[in-house]
């Protein structure tokens, strides 16, 4: 039996439409190895491949079914796993959906002996870790107009998930966190958060902003503090990097030699 590959446009609705098609055409049979993937994935000569168009109606129906199956909590869990970025993503998600529907109404998210369920749990863990790190590794710099700005580059697209956290924590300050990898930012204006495309920011002249007069002073204090708390007799670079991987250093104030400029840099 040949593999069957369903290709979609890469959006989440596209994925859900593909799931709909899989059930509609009864491709969900144990003797078919079914994969769902986006159109950018490499082709496979030995598989039958279908290009699907995204149908919001079908996507809606699948999504409603999954809601009924998992509840709000379960859907949140699944969506976190779906943020994990890799080529097998859709096939694993499909596996989770199949296993859930086959075992309904029993809850399946703790079936760690099932490969897809276990993989999903590991993905959720990775995404949650990245969320947690992005709460920690954001470094705001104060601009002359009083807005606190921070560039970050998370592995997964977690900014929308953690924006409410920052809005609660910094309720009385305007802030902007820019995802440099995905070229957009979250802006909080003391009442609500909005998403802005980075080129839009450029038009508004964000990167021409001057730094607040005190900003370099506090950055230097933080760098001093970072150095003063180290205990040289206990040096442990391996552990240091394990906790704070090198890829995050670029935007960490304490890892810069000179005070970091406020501008969100351009490629």
């Amino acid at each position, binding site marked *: 039996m040949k593999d069957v590959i369903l290709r979609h446009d890469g959006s989440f609705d596209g994925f859900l439409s593909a799931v709909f098609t899989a059930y509609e055409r009864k491709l969900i049979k144990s003797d078919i190895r079914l994969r769902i993937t986006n159109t950018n994935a490499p082709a496979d000569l030995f598989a039958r491949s279908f290009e699907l168009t995204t149908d919001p109606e079908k996507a809606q129906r699948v999504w409603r079914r999954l809601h009924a199956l998992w509840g709000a909590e379960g859907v949140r869990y699944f969506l976190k796993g779906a943020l994990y970025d890799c080529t097998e993503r859709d096939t694993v998600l499909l596996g989770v959906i199949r296993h859930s529907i086959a075992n309904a109404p029993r809850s399946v998210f*703790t*079936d*760690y*002996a*099932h*490969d897809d369920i*276990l993989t999903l749990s590991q993905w959720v863990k990775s995404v949650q870790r990245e969320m*947690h790190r992005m*709460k*920690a*590794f*954001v*470094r*705001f*710099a*104060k601009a002359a107009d009083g807005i*606190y700005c*921070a560039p970050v580059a998370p592995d997964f697209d977690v900014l929308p998930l953690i924006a409410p*956290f920052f809005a*609660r*924590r*910094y*309720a*009385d*300050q305007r802030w902007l966190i820019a995802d440099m990898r995905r070229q957009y930012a979250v802006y909080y204006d003391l009442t609500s958060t909005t998403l802005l495309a980075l080129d839009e920011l450029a038009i508004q002249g964000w990167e021409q902003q001057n730094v607040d007069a*005190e900003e370099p*002073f*506090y950055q*230097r*204090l*933080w760098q*001093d*503090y*970072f*150095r*003063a*708390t*180290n*205990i*040289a*007799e*206990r*040096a*442990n*670079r*391996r*552990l*240091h990097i*394990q*906790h*704070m991987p090198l890829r995050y250093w670029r935007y*960490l*104030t*304490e890892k810069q030699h000179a005070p970091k400029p406020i501008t969100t840099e351009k490629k």
Partner: protein
Amino acid sequence: MINHDRLQNKLTILADAAKYDVSCSSSGGKRDNKGGLGNASKSGICHTYTEDGRCVSLLKILLSNHCIYDCAYCVSRSSNDVERAAFTVEEVVALTINFYRRNYIEGLFLSSGIFKNPDHTMSRMILIAKKLREEENFHGYIHLKTIPKAAPELIREAGLYADRLSINMEIPTPSGLAKLAPEKDHQDMIAPMKTVRDEIVALKDMRKTIKSTPKFAPAGQSTQLIVGATAETDRQIIDVANNCYKKLQLKRVYYSGYVPVLEDSRLPAIGTAVPQVREHRLYQADWLMRFYGFQADEILDRQSPFLDLDIDPKLAWALRHRHQFPIHIQYAPLEMILRVPGIGSKSAHKIVAARRNERLTLEHIRKMGAAVNRAKYFIITNEHNPHLHQLDDLDLKQRLATGSHSKYKQALSGQMPLFT
């Protein structure tokens, strides 16, 4: 107006002097923010890590390193020739707020050398916390170090502003403390811990009927024990910690391998290695008491007062209690799964959840994150397990020790002579 250069200089001195305090936890607090600045999240957040690998979540500083006491192990002791400095109340407040707004920290950890007298020092610290809460509308985490011999009223006041209060016992045995800190007494530390404990309990009770009762040190209290400055045994340390958890209801006990920075005939010489492996084993023992259901007297048996340095204490327990193994992964109660070497608490819970619908194999539990290279000698699964035959082998300990702890090999060889 703040003098920049002077503040920078003070920060370097007073952060350096505070760095030997291990605690940096910002967890367990739950403070909501209503329109002001900051909140405390239940899990706590580590914002950065020092190059020695310790987490930094709080701005940990001394208010002053002037001290009237002369405790041998402390860099701020009165007879030590170091540069002295003291923050003003305004400076600490400005540092905390400005660091917090830039997301460098979760809050403030304020300790101090004792200047003038204990009450005066304690009142100054309270003033800072009060100003942060009431004038700056700050709801981030505040950890205040209780000053030994400060009046109970002051400790009660501190608990109204702080998320956590702590007082360091430092030297685990009364005799060791008498030798290194002749002006202090264990009772000076235990008395305020009791005040805090009683206050937490009383206000918790009161809140059941009167909802507006203020919160008192909602993240509880903690303490620190210095390891290896005096000749105490691990058994003594574990007993002290156990008392702290059971009788004084502490949230955390920290262990700090002594870093020899002072020339003193009562202390290990400068250049002596920091007992990091011993410290690590004590933390593992602590975890066994707090999360794995072990009693203090199970961790070390009567004859041996020291933890094994080359294997972890859970594995050591299992090797001493081989008659309780193997256990069946499919049927054993959670408490026993938690006692299997190589299975941590997360994998244990996963195993118990997953086995309801599936007969588990070694491969399953490996994928769930257990260290099967250790666990395989102690568990029965639904497939043939050839390693079980080795459970009674006399050299099993040797095999397990060489198999899994390579990262400490070097530290071990350098450190062994200290404890033998």
